[in-house]
């Protein structure tokens, strides 16, 4: 597995920081890249982050979901070492961002919410500056900058001033900026804000491709649910400074559903006989009318049973669908509950 060589090379580096990454057994082969424990941040009486504990595994795309003002950006700033936590501990790639900020920043690329480049410099010059700040030699810088520009599709406009770029191009340049330093983790704060749907898709595809090719771990903060759903393997829901749920989308859906499934059934004839027939199926707990179809609550997989029951009686089945909880429902449920 490609991950194996990556971990063995880096294992000598990761002994510092008071939270050493736990190298798990060969069977799971997952390294924890970011870990926070009871992280708290208070500004002037406002508690922006309230006891946050989560882990980020290497190679995954983690979505930090939450409304504006939930504390996502503050958490990201603490991970980057740009702000000091009030209490709690953070470990990023084995380093403490407060004590060892340079090591963290060397390996973590950060794309802030309002990506900004120097408008009077060209795209290339901006990236060369970043390379210079990262201590790359001239030769290395040239190679990395060209690679980054190619990768995001801005090679033709490398010499144009950034002031002339559209918003989508700036976002891509921001990603190129992050790639120049060859990071192990990239943190993207609302990367798709203000982009048209085409550009959003391009950006998401780019993130996915990069994550595969460069063996990156991605932490994505957003409130755009569909986009998060598309690329994130795990999601954390952030509300008022607390992470109220985390896990993969399937896990969250199951948690929320509480083992209960909801199905939509539409059949003819539709009336009390249908209701009685449905209720007789083992596992069905409720049947309610919902507009033009019946909403059936069940504790187990009952679709084959419903289909069979209706067919046996010679009735016509028009619609049978199991409603899965999508991210939108999950989000709204948790958000309402908080």
């Amino acid at each position, binding site marked *: 597995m490609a991950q194996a060589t990556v971990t063995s090379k880096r294992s000598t580096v990761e002994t510092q920081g008071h939270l050493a990454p736990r190298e798990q057994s060969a069977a799971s082969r997952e390294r924890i890249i970011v870990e926070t424990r009871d992280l708290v941040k208070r500004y002037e009486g406002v508690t922006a982050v309230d006891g946050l504990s989560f882990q980020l595994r290497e190679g995954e795309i983690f979505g930090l979901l939450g409304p504006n003002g939930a504390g996502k950006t503050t958490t990201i700033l603490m991970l980057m070492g740009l*702000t000091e936590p009030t209490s709690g501990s953070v470990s990023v790639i084995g380093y403490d961002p407060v004590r060892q900020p*340079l090591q963290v*920043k060397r390996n973590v690329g950060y794309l*802030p919410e309002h990506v*900004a480049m120097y408008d009077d410099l060209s795209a290339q010059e901006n990236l060369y500056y970043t390379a210079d*700040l990262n201590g790359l030699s001239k030769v290395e810088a040239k190679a990395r900058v060209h690679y980054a520009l190619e990768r995001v599709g801005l090679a033709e406009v490398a010499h144009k001033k950034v002031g002339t770029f559209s918003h989508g191009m700036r976002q891509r340049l921001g990603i190129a900026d992050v790639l120049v330093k060859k990071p192990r983790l990239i943190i993207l704060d609302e990367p798709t804000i203000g982009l048209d749907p085409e550009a959003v898709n391009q950006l998401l595809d780019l993130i996915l491709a990069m994550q595969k090719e460069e063996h990156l771990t991605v932490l994505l903060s957003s409130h755009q649910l569909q986009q998060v759903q598309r690329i994130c393997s795990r999601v954390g829901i952030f509300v008022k400074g607390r992470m109220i749920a985390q896990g993969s989308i399937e896990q969250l859906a199951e948690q929320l559903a509480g083992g209960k499934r909801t199905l939509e059934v539409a059949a003819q004839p539709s009336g009390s006989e249908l209701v009685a027939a449905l209720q007789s199926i083992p596992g069905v707990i409720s049947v309610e009318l919902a507009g033009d179809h019946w909403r059936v609550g069940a504790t187990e997989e009952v679709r084959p049973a419903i289909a069979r029951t209706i067919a046996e009686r010679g009735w016509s089945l028009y619609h049978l669908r199991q409603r899965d909880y999508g991210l939108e429902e999950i989000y709204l449920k948790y958000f309402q509950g908080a």
Partner: protein
Amino acid sequence: MGGLFAVYRKELADHLGSRRFIILFVLILFAGLSSVYVAAQSIRDQVANSRNVFLLMFTTSSGPLPPFFTFISFLGPLVGLALAFDSINGERNRGTLSRLLAQPIYRDAVVNGKFLAALTTVAAMLTSIVVIVSALGIVELAVIPTSQELLRVIAFLIVCILYVGFWLALATTFSVLLRNTATAALAGIAAWIFLTFFVSMIADAIANAFVSANTLLDPNAILQVTQMRDMIARISPDTLFQEATVAILMPNIRTLGPILISQVVGLVPNPLPLSQSLLLIWPQVVGLLALMAICFAIAYVKFMTQEVRSL
């Protein structure tokens, strides 16, 4: 170096290629050229009789046109303010500051690099102007500077750089403390007006408050009041600069304050060697350096302790 050189290089390149720099450079160059040309014309006749003719170019005024060093004392602060008033808050407003701080550089490399780059730009500007102006003077007067005169011009340059450096530091402080670049520029100009024009008026007013009918009769009392007035006026870096440059560029100047006639009796009016002139103005030079250092220290501490959220 934790990113200091990278920031320094980029800021220096930005400054030297910017329109702002070119405007300031041309402005001061014209001011310098005109004052020196006119001064050269007026002392042309005295060339044969005087010593230190070369230095006279910088200190002679002709008619309404002030001498060269007065131009510098006037325009130097503007150069310092103009180059640095938006150094930190400009980055913040454009949003590039958080991008900078997300790179593996020490946080102070940003403010240090910017300040050093601006200081280098000022040094380059002043040095080239003084050299150009001296060349014009040499051509006009057909006089070659002696080594003492040359050393004095170099000392003058250093004092100029220190002086403008104070204004650079002040502008940097404003750019750290104030969010809006225009407000920072206005604050700088307000400070300049106050320190250049009002401090001497205030010094006069305070000194006058201590003058009574008795004071005029007692020479010691007059001396004390005058010295107090001078001390208050020295709050302004403009006063310090004027005193320092006057002593450097006019070797005949022996004192910087009032003296009694009894001290002057029997004095042979020879020009001072450079070492003695420097001894005379050492407090002023240290004062300028201290002002610059204190201003920069305030900017540094505030920048390092500001919360990133506001970035």
